[in-house]
């Protein structure tokens, strides 16, 4: 059973853009100060998505591994940079980027490979129709959790540095002195995906599943894919946050269990 897929035409999109234009007009009329950013954002999303569409179409027809790897690399680098950009306290340059990129390798790259080889069994394994959307979805969703967990750990530790040092002075191990904060950060990183799983289907219809249904897939097939994605995102986020917390904690304390923010954070200017 495959329902008819209704392609959108340029006039269809223009009708939708009229809504945004109306909003921009009303915004500037009321001097709400959103019109300019809104215009830029709307133009950006149009240009970026059209460009990606063209690139993906080219890659899908070619299905050459080097090109796919290049796209993967670009996606991962941008996501790593995005995680760092969301940190209130900036981690030291190359080290921070390394941790961020490594966490994405765990949360997205390996999990995608696993799914492609063992679960989906696409042929060839790098079939871009599966590989790229899967990786993109994992990156987009795990990135959030990693950024939140990282930010919570560094920010809370910084605010509570006197408490951490007090606990060290009383003879606690470094891992003991940071334990409460690490636990809290793990929860902060996992809350978005836990909420998403709890609300899925009842409060919200996840985007990917909705997309598949719009494209004509039977709902039950779309749901199966959605469950797969949820599980992949959850485990990816969880493992990545655990690793990030470990790496940052190890960097935060030196071999003599001293609190060393100078090793972790950029010097304030």
């Amino acid at each position, binding site marked *: 059973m495959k329902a008819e897929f209704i392609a959108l035409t340029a006039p269809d999109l223009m009708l939708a853009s009229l809504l945004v234009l109306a909003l921009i007009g009303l915004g500037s009329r009321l001097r709400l100060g959103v019109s300019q950013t809104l215009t830029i954002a709307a133009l950006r999303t149009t240009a970026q998505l059209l460009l990606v569409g063209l690139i993906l179409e080219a890659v899908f027809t070619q299905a050459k591994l080097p090109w796919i790897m290049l796209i993967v690399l670009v996606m991962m680098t941008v996501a790593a940079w995005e995680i760092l950009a969301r940190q209130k306290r900036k981690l030291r340059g190359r080290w921070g980027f390394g941790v961020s990129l490594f966490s994405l390798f765990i949360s997205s790259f390996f999990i995608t490979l696993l799914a492609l080889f063992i679960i989906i069994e696409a042929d060839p394994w790098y079939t871009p129709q599966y590989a790229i959307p899967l990786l993109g979805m994992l990156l987009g969703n795990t990135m959030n959790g990693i950024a939140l967990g990282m930010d919570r750990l560094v920010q809370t530790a910084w605010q509570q540095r*006197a408490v951490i*040092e007090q*606990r060290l002075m009383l003879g606690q191990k470094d891992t003991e002195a940071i334990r409460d904060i690490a636990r809290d950060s793990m929860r902060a990183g996992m809350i978005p995906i836990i909420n998403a799983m709890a609300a899925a289907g009842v409060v919200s219809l996840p985007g990917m599943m909705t997309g598949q249904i719009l494209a004509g897939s039977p709902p039950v097939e779309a749901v199966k894919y959605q469950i797969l994605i949820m599980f992949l995102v959850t485990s990816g986020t969880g493992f990545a946050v655990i690793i990030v917390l470990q790496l940052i904690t190890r960097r935060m304390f030196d071999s003599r269990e*001293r609190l060393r923010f100078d090793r972790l954070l950029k010097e304030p200017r």
Partner: protein
Amino acid sequence: MLRLEDLQIPDLETINLTIAPGECVGLSGESGSGKTRLLRAIADMDEHGGQVYEEGIAQDQVRAHEWRRRVMLLPAESQWWLDTVGEHFIGHVEHIDVLGFEPEVMSWNISRCSSGEKQRLSILRMLANCPRVLLLDEPTANLDASNTARVEDMVRKYLTEFNAIAIWVGHDAEQLKRVSQHQYLLSDGRFIKVNPA
């Protein structure tokens, strides 16, 4: 015995000092002169040069948290991270009454404690760990005269009973003479013995 050997701290001269068991050394100096940094180096809380020995064991011979259980630093401002007083203590706490508390103090909520109460409680908390060396950073700064006397008395008794060692940082020269056998002064980066008799 506590021995500081060629201890190097930024902006301070190299420090050599030996303290015998049961003794207390008083240390004074203007704020910013490096008193706290000296205590932190002895507790291995900051990077530093040189070596510190406690009963013949060098600082880097044992793991840092084991060192700090033996050589314990009492910071000028104590920190409390759990809800009640008692949760911050490990094991049995003796001599609660000596610092003017009832045993019920252990169920008090931290947010109810005054700064003076926290200071006295932090001394109890430290001594409950049975450290061999006490590094006291202005331990009576927030206390009135009667509580100051209680703390001095308690530390003196602890040192005698356990043959332990203390370095007492303070501003009151009279107090330092009361509590310590030797007094030193940190001034312009120099570590000076006061009144070498």
